[in-house]
């Protein structure tokens, strides 16, 4: 029961994924939504690395975990640039108040 197996890592990543979804659904601040997305990407990465270790797949899983980290960095930069633009236009970043396509 307490012996750590593949299931333990998968359950950890499932709970982390659910917490990320909860953050995305309940938060109004756009930066907080980004933090939820980062949690979800981390959960997916744990799955990649866990299957790479326990499935004897070589290093493919770790390579894809690296690629996910790179994509997360690019996504964070672009998303924060968009959030800054939204702030300049609407003077807040609450995503439930931003409902205009054009000022």
């Amino acid at each position, binding site marked *: 029961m307490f012996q750590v197996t593949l299931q333990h890592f998968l359950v950890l990543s499932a709970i982390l994924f659910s917490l990320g979804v909860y953050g995305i659904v309940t938060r109004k601040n756009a930066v907080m939504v980004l933090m939820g997305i980062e949690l979800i990407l981390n959960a997916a990465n744990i799955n990649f690395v866990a299957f790479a270790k326990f499935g004897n797949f070589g290093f493919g899983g770790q390579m894809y975990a690296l690629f996910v980290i790179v994509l997360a960095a690019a996504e964070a930069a672009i998303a*924060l640039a968009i959030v800054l633009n939204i702030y300049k236009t609407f003077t807040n970043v609450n995503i439930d108040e931003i409902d205009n396509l054009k000022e």
Partner: protein
Amino acid sequence: MNYYDILFYLFAIITLVSAGFVVTTRNVIYSAFFLLFTFFGVAGIYVLLAADFIAVVQIMVYVGGILILLLFGVMLTNKITNVDIRTGTGNLLPASIAVGLLMGALVSVMIYTGWKVQPGEVPDTSIKQLGALLITDYLLIFELLGILLLIALIGAASIARRDKE
């Protein structure tokens, strides 16, 4: 329970507790700093999974890059002088129910699926193999990711640039 198991539970508790605070605390700055502990916990999990290079990259890119970007985003999009760094929450009850159901379904799938485990031998370090794979099997993806990062850099700079009034 040996040291491996104890370390796993330690890092898992750090990760999950701080992730829970990230999504529940109302102050955005607190959330960002709890996210720091979440990233460190996940890096520890990577080490336990024999992915040492991924763990180092996790700390360098997530903590050194993405978290700093998020903090900049928080600072630049809030009225610091009015101490209005709080975030509103909405749909708490339906979101809790739906996410609880989702979590239950995911966890039960993960537990009750008969995963076929076949552990291979764990090498001392993964850097050499990862480097060799990057310039052989994954060369195209590697180059495309370089181009993507360049595009993201230029795009982010041009989107966030102030207009010359």
